[in-house]
């Protein structure tokens, strides 16, 4: 597959060529076809909007080149720096995103479910419901009720929700599954 060309617009990367846009989306539900509401629709005629996290992954995979306004190349290191600058726990998010993608899952934004990622086995609109993944620094102290809060939102979607704990120094990621328990 040819490398798609993306343009860095603020903290988004836009793939304006419709052919390249469809091709990336079909490959693994990367990004969001602009203005298209049904995620199942893979025959759209629209540009593709990628998050910086998705863009970095695709650049690392060699599937995407990112250019800035002056047509200069935006390197993976530069995208990484932007992620760190703009998103709290940005690096951790990227590590988990990459790990899930490398395991063959479709990871997408989980914001509308109150999670960091919504994770699909086949794809949005195809799977019955995504797994919801919350990303937490394994060395950071958390309030136990944050787990309950995560659970409250996630339970409306699936019986289980997942916390990915990440050690930034070692790169180790552990997935803890939580399931409602009635004693």
């Amino acid at each position: 597959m040819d490398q798609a060309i993306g343009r860095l617009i603020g903290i988004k990367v836009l793939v304006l060529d419709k052919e390249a846009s469809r091709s990336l989306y079909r490959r693994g539900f990367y990004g969001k076809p602009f203005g298209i509401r049904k995620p199942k629709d893979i025959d759209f005629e629209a540009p593709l909007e990628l998050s910086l996290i998705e863009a970095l992954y695709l650049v690392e995979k060699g599937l995407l080149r990112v250019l800035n306004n002056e047509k200069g190349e935006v390197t993976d290191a530069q995208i990484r720096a932007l992620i760190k600058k703009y998103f709290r726990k940005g690096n951790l998010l990227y590590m988990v995103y990459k790990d899930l993608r490398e395991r063959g899952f479709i990871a997408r934004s989980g914001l509308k479910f109150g999670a960091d990622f919504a994770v699909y086995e086949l794809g949005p609109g195809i799977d019955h419901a995504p797994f919801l993944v919350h990303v937490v620094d394994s060395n950071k102290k958390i309030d136990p009720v944050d787990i309950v809060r995560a659970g409250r939102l996630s339970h409306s979607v699936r019986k289980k929700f997942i916390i990915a704990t990440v050690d930034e120094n070692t790169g180790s990621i552990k997935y803890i599954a939580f399931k409602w328990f009635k004693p």
Partner: protein
Amino acid sequence: MPVKAVMRDDAIFVEEDYSRLEAMGYGVVVDDALRLDPVEALYLTYIGEITVYSNSNILDFESLVKILHSKDPLLWVKFTVYYDLRSRGRVVRPGVTDNSLLLYSSKKSTRAEIAIYVVEEAKIMKLRELVEWIRSARMQGRTTVLAVVDKHGDVTYYETSIIEPLKKVG
């Protein structure tokens, strides 16, 4: 009639007529006396099954809470979870670690199949420690449950496990 218990060197013992309590899953027999964990002693005092004496004075529930809490800051939270489970008719025992309890899945069980990790709102925790606890309890063949006690004393339970996300093939 409550059974008499005595506090000796910070531990609580029932020295006579303890077979019924023992059969109900309370305490451990040590030198012909039933040694109760602080949480068990508190519960049995609360429900009127025992009266705890220190020398010849009776320690009522309030005194007992004061004394035991000063030695274990997690006492009340553990008691909250212990009480919740006992009041649901479950057999529960003190756990292997300070902040855990053991739960029997039925009255006939000879071994506690479920380990419960007790945490409280606003008492910060590290997920790394939870991960390690889950690992070791799972290695002993137990189901692991997290009990979160919120500021109002409500308990939320989650069954927890460490998973290796793998995609189903096909």
